[in-house]
């Protein structure tokens, strides 16, 4: 009798194939997914990132910390339990949309910030192109919004922002592209 035809062998082969198939697909998916190119910048939950941020929109999730060296023309969206700290090298035209319970800089200690309190930072981040004002617009010039400055841990009132002119800002000039790169393992060609 052919061994391959025994039911136990066939079942064993089927199970091993399914396990191998699922494991390998998961492996390939995880390899490619970790390097997915995206225009959205998010600080992964539970991690601390140190960075100079230029002309970007950044979501800081609950349990994560972003320490910024220098910030210019950025919008930060900070969830409750998220922390936005640093700014030792300066701040310019930076807006912070923070939930209650988010750790954000003290606005009195540094100029260059505008801080708003929002109900859902993650939703504000995902809807930012249709609901939030451009970073270079002075909030006092807009009659359709109410501002609630937040000092330290966020407190404030619920509010909504709307701007009809989406062309004031866009993805084309938001990227903070580096000018050069250095590697400890590879020498540059002269």
């Amino acid at each position, binding site marked *: 009798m052919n061994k391959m035809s025994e039911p136990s062998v066939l079942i064993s082969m089927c199970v091993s194939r399914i396990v191998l198939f699922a494991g390998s*697909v998961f492996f*390939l998916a995880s*390899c490619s997914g970790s390097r997915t*190119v995206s225009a959205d*910048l998010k600080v992964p939950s539970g991690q601390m990132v140190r*960075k*100079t941020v230029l002309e970007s929109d950044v979501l800081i999730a609950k349990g994560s910390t972003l320490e910024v060296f220098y910030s210019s023309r950025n919008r930060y969206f900070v969830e409750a339990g998220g922390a936005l700290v640093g700014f030792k090298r300066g701040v310019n035209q930076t807006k912070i949309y923070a939930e209650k319970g988010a750790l954000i800089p003290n606005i009195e200690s540094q100029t260059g910030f505008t801080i708003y309190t929002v109900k859902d930072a993650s939703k504000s981040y995902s809807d930012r192109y249709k609901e939030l004002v451009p970073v270079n617009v002075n909030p006092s010039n807009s009659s359709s919004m109410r501002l609630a400055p937040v000092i330290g841990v966020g407190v404030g009132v619920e509010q909504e922002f709307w701007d009809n002119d989406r062309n004031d800002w866009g993805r084309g000039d938001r990227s903070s592209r580096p000018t*050069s*790169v250095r590697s400890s393992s590879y020498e540059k060609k002269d």
Partner: protein
Amino acid sequence: MKKTLMIIAGIVGLTAASEAQFAGINGGIMLGGGFMEDPDKGYGFLQLRGTVYEDDAVSHTLFLEVLGHSDDAELEFLGLTGVPFVENGEINFTNFTLNYELEAKLSSAISFYAGAGGGIERVSLDDAFDFSVDSDSNFVGQAFAGFRAKLGKSFFAQVGIRHLWRDDFSLLADQFLVEDTTAYELSIGFRF
């Protein structure tokens, strides 16, 4: 899109490998890791294998391999005031190669293997957010050899050495010099 294509390629490859024995080809999968001499870095790899001929003395195998390693980088940004800022980044290298392997059976449990292959090395520069800043693709070639031990009917383990021929790569405006390197590795596989 890239992720979807990778998953589709994986499904097609694995389905083909798992059904291969019905076409006279025995499939296999191998997972391993090793250490390169230059640069001083560890790496990991996955092989999808198909043995096209096998007798008591030798076997001929073709396999697709994905090999990856990463390296630290420093990214320099120019601030609005003209002052440069530096932050940490990462350069990721992923090799996709097609390889041929000859296995010579020294005994019922031990065999010697050697082979060569070639393909593409994908170089990706990521910032602190894992946001891809720039990338490059170049040719990579390799030759390898080692010893393999059977572990039961389906599993096997091997220790080996490989030599990699890699091209220089470009990121942003810079060209980086790459030396050919030798690497040492351990891996475990499963035949089906």
